[in-house]
């Protein structure tokens, strides 16, 4: 029956599980002292001493009977002498661990150990692997099967432990980063050491893994080595029924090849499949910024004046305690300040003639579109108005803009002669020229007084201005400009560059 094999674990989920485990612990402890048989009285006495909850003899008897039922213990009739009449009539047994019971205990022990493990990053294991690989590569000529076998075994066992520990460690680290079951204080105290630890491992990994990968690549006669180890192991295989010579060795060789490819994939990757060591390195490196981010989250939480989370919980309570819904809205507005401002809207210009002492009752009323008042809509309902074709106007506008640009261009050409000209010698200017002239003059004079050189904002024209004695008059169609005379030079930089 399949369940009878595993029913030795039944006591784990039974109501009295802790008592059962304590009893089994007593048996294991005694077995270590080579005491095999135990009387119920002895067990009760030991339980009394183990610091746990007090138990009565009756409870112990009951528990022992159960454990016997589940095959954890074996009961043998107790044929020893008794000293009272009651004892004589009571069914008496001596208990010892059954084979199943003992196996179950060992399994549980292993289980506890595995789960309790925090994992570690074994930089030392890397070094061990490297040294042994070095020994392997160093062997030339005749190889001693025993040495080869031992080296290979050691490499594999170190790798095994390195891999298992690394994955346990990274899992634990992830839980730390996610701040699951970790106290903030403990985390902050621990973080520096953790980061230093990660950094040390990463640097070891980078150096050693490269070395190891290099050696693995250089080992050309791997298969011979593996064969040596396999043959040596095959010699030890106990004879089976359908064994044929050579088969055991082949099986062992296959096993060793698997292990070797495992080692290879750990340290030697290719472009599509990065090796495990590389992945571990990436993960470890990533853990450092992740840890820093976690620290910043913690700092952020601490920086609030009061505990924000507590604030929100208090507000939840206040909302719940609000007498009416309107009160809840008041609280929402005050605490979160997310509500909109609210204003009456206005359509027409305000009448300024109303004084501030006029009552709303006497003031002119707000002008509201007659249609809105009558229908509730500004626009007339129905089909939208026909779209007016404005292409003719647009063309006219374009022509106008082009003409204006041409005129400005002409004005620029006439003014930007590149020769120094006294203002008093300027000819009569048309309006476009005059506007450009004024702008240039304004820009130059703004920098003065004295001799100045400047450029227009677009960099196209350079202006030099030097004061002269006397006065100048410039005539335009719109009037006459008078001012102190200057010598003005306007140079067209754009034309100059092109020409």
């Amino acid at each position, binding site marked *: 029956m399949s369940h009878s094999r595993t029913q030795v674990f039944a006591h784990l989920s039974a109501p009295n599980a802790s008592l059962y485990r304590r009893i089994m612990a007593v048996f294991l402890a005694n077995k270590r002292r080579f005491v095999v048989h135990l009387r119920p009285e002895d067990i009760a006495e030991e339980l009394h001493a183990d610091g746990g909850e007090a138990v009565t003899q009756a409870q112990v008897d009951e528990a022992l009977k159960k454990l016997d039922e589940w095959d954890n213990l074996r009961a043998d009739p107790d044929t020893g002498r008794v000293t009272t009449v009651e004892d004589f009539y009571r069914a008496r047994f001596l208990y010892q661990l059954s084979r199943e019971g003992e196996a179950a205990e060992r399994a549980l022990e292993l289980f506890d150990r595995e789960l309790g493990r925090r994992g570690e990053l074994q930089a030392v294991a890397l070094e061990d692997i490297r040294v042994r690989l070095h020994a392997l590569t160093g062997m030339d000529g005749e190889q001693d099967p025993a040495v080869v076998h031992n080296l290979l075994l050691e490499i594999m066992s170190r790798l095994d432990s390195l891999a298992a520990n690394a994955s346990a460690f990274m899992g634990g680290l992830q839980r730390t980063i996610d701040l699951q079951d970790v106290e903030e204080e403990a985390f902050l105290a621990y973080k520096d050491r953790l980061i230093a630890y990660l950094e040390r491992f990463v640097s070891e990994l980078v150096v050693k893994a490269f070395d190891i990968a290099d050696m693995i690549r250089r080992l050309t006669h791997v298969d011979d080595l593996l064969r040596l180890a396999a043959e040596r192991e095959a010699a030890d295989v106990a004879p089976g029924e359908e064994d044929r010579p050579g088969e055991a060795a082949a099986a062992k060789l296959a096993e060793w090849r698997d292990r070797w490819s495992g080692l290879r994939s750990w340290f030697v990757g290719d472009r599509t499949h990065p090796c495990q060591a590389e992945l571990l390195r990436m993960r470890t490196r990533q853990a450092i910024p992740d840890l820093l981010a976690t620290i910043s989250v913690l700092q952020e939480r601490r920086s609030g004046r009061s505990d924000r989370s507590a604030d929100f919980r208090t507000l939840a309570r206040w909302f719940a305690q609000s007498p009416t819904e309107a009160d809840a809205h008041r609280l929402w507005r*005050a605490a979160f300040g997310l509500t909109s401002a609210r204003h009456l809207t206005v359509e027409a210009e305000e009448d300024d003639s109303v004084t501030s002492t006029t009552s709303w009752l006497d003031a002119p009323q707000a002008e509201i579109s007659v249609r809105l008042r009558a*229908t509730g809509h500004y626009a007339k309902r129905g089909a939208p108005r026909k779209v007016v074709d404005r292409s003719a106007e647009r063309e006219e506008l374009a022509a106008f803009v082009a003409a204006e640009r041409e005129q400005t261009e002409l004005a620029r050409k006439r003014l930007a002669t590149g020769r120094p000209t006294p203002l008093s010698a300027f000819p009569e200017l048309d309006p476009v020229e005059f506007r450009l002239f004024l702008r240039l003059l304004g820009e130059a004079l703004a920098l003065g007084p004295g001799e100045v050189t400047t450029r227009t904002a677009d960099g196209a024209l350079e202006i030099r201005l030097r004061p002269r004695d006397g006065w100048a008059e410039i005539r335009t169609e719109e009037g006459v400009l008078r001012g102190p005379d200057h010598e003005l030079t306007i140079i067209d930089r754009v034309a100059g560059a092109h020409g």
Partner: protein
Amino acid sequence: MAEEFRDVLDADREEGRRRAVRALLRHPLLTPTHPDFRLVRTHQGWLADWFARETGWTLHADTAVARLRKIPARHGDGTRSAQVKKNVPFSRRRYALACLALAVLERADGQVTLGWLAERMLAIAGDPGLVEAGMVFTLGTREERADLATVAALLINEGVLGKVAGDEAAFVSGSGDALYDVNRKVLAVLLVTRRGPSTVQAGELHERLVAITEDVLPDTDDGRNRLIRHTLTRRLLDDPVLYYRELTEAERAYLERQRGPLLKRLVEGTGFVAEVRAEGIALLDPTREATDLGMPEEGTDGHATLLLADFLAQHLRMYPDVPVEVAAARAEMERLAVRHRGLWRKNASAAELTVGAIHRLDALGLIHVRGESLIPLPALARFGFGEPTITGKKGA
């Protein structure tokens, strides 16, 4: 030409600032997805100065969020609610849930799912204060999950959560979940309280509101004056109408002395139009950018409100200070509904429209609701209508 150009630039910049002020008044918390976010960032320094000087509200802006810590000048107004769908205000229950969700998010990391959130909220929902107030959350029923989805929608709207995958509807029906990014920067600026609510002992709601919003100002003449000025500006900027009779004596005296310059600064800064009357002041918003409710407004509800306002204003003019019964308003609305049957929404009942219109008029400071009677307030008179006078070309 350069001169003209500079003028245009100046005008442009000032208009931009006004628009940014209005945007912040309408949405005190902006995230980069909002069209006005860049505008606020552009004028950030000026805006921070302006709000600090005029109202004492602080403005915080960085690449992730722009936040005006807008604290109301008084706490009487119960018409401004959190909403996800228009016209469906949050219930106390949803508010409480939202706070629980925020309490959980405060402790969360970069990403959460709605299911995860619900689980953690359950752990803190057993708070004795909540249970005593009759709030029991199990988050097991469809209805409660729908409440939670609404809360999530609010947090998404405000930018606290950013949806990555999934769907709230699936969560409500129990067939799926939704995944969000938590925006810690927005979360950090969500509360505007001057004091952490958890440090306040008061048991009565009004005391609590005062305690969490009170400004600490030096007890000098200057400090007191500043406080009065800020109170007045906050009301003018945030509330539709400021009635003199609601002010304290000191506030009234200050306003009498300083009204001109005060209003001038506000009008220049916001682009609003000040309507000053014997009973009070209303800042009117010609752009309609800085308000969630408008008056007048298009559509059935806006129209019904406008017409009811007309009716109440006539009453106000004839019998000042005499309340109108809600029943009378409803009767008027029924008459109006008959007349405008063809124009109005088919499924709107007169009773529903009356409730909506009363809420809107109350929210806009045009009437007071006291039990079953309505007290028209002076500013309502601006919505009364005489017969329209036709101006312009005759015979055109």
